[in-house]
């Protein structure tokens, strides 16, 4: 079996807020193979986002081993984490987080620019992604001129523009209505199935979690259970 793209061993994370120290993660173990679509569920404050932030190189682990795309995050510094964000992971957030002054196209171009890629023309395979996301015609609009669903699809496009090995989506449907949520979930499934995109998705919604290949359940900073979606087959064939 090839090395997992994400390997987490006995990961602890403590946040210092004032004089009290909050243990956000207390010994997380997780392997994610390349090409997997993983859901993470759990009550508020259970450490889901914290796990993402460490795996995505936004903050260093306090202790334990975290290897992402061959990079040992316990050993790298700030610039190593920046490099990881630049090359290996793409973030999608609940609040879309598009740059408000820029059009969808310029948001995407900014991501390309930061990762050191050409920004004047989009590559063929990225155009396919735009078509799949259904936003090819909305590229010259600013976030304020788009619906939440459209904004989130642009955010996904921006996250994928640089071909990251891993897409980290923290409650991507949390701010969307049912119809848009469904569309985004189906898109993530499509991206995973058609392009083999590795996706980790945090969700509060049990039905949303079912779109993944595997669901991990977190509580009080640890993974308490791993399950396979019940109706996995009913959603379509998993190749």
């Amino acid at each position, binding site marked *: 079996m090839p090395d997992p793209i994400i390997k987490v061993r006995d990961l602890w994370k403590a946040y210092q807020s004032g004089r009290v120290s909050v243990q956000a993660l207390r010994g997380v173990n997780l392997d994610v193979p390349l090409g997997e679509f993983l859901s993470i569920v759990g009550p508020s404050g259970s450490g889901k986002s914290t796990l993402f*932030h460490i795996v*995505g190189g*936004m*903050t260093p682990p306090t202790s334990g081993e975290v290897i992402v795309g061959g990079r040992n995050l316990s050993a790298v510094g700030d*610039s190593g984490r*920046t*490099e*990881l*964000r*630049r*090359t290996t992971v793409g*973030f999608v*957030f609940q609040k879309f*987080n*598009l*740059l*408000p*002054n*820029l059009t969808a196209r*310029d948001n995407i*171009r*900014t*991501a390309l*620019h*930061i*990762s050191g890629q050409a*920004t004047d023309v989009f590559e063929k395979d990225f155009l396919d992604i735009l078509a799949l996301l259904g936003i090819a015609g909305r590229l010259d609009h600013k976030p304020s001129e788009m619906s939440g669903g459209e904004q989130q699809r642009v955010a996904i496009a*921006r996250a994928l523009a640089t071909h990251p090995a891993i897409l980290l989506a923290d409650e991507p449907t949390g701010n969307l209505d049912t119809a848009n949520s469904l569309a985004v979930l189906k898109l993530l499934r499509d991206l995973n199935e058609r392009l083999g995109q590795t996706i980790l998705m945090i969700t509060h919604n049990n039905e949303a979690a079912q779109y993944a290949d595997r669901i991990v359940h977190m509580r009080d900073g640890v993974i308490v259970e791993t399950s396979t979606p019940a109706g996995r087959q009913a959603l379509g064939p998993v190749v």
Partner: protein
Amino acid sequence: MIFRLVFENVRHRPIRTMLSVLLIAVPVTLILALIGLSNGFLEDSRKRSAGVGADILFKAPGGSLMTFSTGALPQKIVDLLKTEPHVVQATGTLVQPIGGFDSINGIDLAEFGKMSGGFTYAEGHGFQTPDDVLIDTWYAQQRKVHAGGKINLLNRDWHVAGIVEPGKLAHLFAPLASMQDILGSTGKVSQVFLKLDDPKNADAVVAALKVKYADYGIWSISEMQALISVDSIPLLKNFINVILGIGVIIGFAVVSLSMYMAVLQRTREIGILKSMGATKSFIMSLIMAEAFCLGFGGTIVGILMSYVAKAAMHAVAPASLPQAIVYTWWPIAGGVAMGAALLGAVYPGMMAVRQDPIEALAHE
């Protein structure tokens, strides 16, 4: 792409951008107006001294180029100087500053006319009574008088006998004898102009005169022209340095404040950029590029405003304040503004760079 990000940021805060640019423009305008005024004034005095038609200027011992010691020379010296080799004409004038950059020059109209080629009268005629003055067209415009009108100078009313074309020694002239009377300098003059048989002899004559009249202030007019510069007036140089310093401080403070606010307002956007893998140097260059834009905009607006200042000065006092546009100072004033702007952006830039990406993203 950096340009795009910066441009959109600048464009989306038009009030902040405009205010910053305007504030940076103020010292730029100040610098350029001051330099313009100094150069304009010096250029004007150069032209006017050339307009006298003399080859040598002769002043009392210790006399300097840019100052006048009223009535420091006995008028008899004029006749003595006339007897010097190569000297074909000599005429003494009595100078009395009247505030601002202006002065009244007591002249012997016939002698002065002979040396300078005579006044060109726009209105009126030469002196006829001791109360007559001649003024040039600039001064007439500034004081809004015509030939035949009255003008108050040195606490007495003068009759404007004529209005002459500018460019000869000064803006205002009175009969030498009247000036000597008023100033209590009977038989005295401030300076003597000498005209030679050939201007080429000026240096030799100056050298000869310096031997005979040691300690007197003696310059050839061409030497004097070269000496009339910003560097020859130490106070002016200091003043310009002070204004440059003020420019640096204003530019620094304005951009510091403006960019500090911008970084606070854009905390979340900085977090977004960081989540995409933006490096410290990328974030820093964004802030710097924006500061550069503010500094550059301030420079352009400052230059434009210096033209406005020039027009305003000209409208208020056409004779006293001839402001030149000195192109060579544009890069200096701009460099000061932009250097200060970039310096001012350093701290806000560090603030942005140090931002924790998670906290920045949590920012509302």
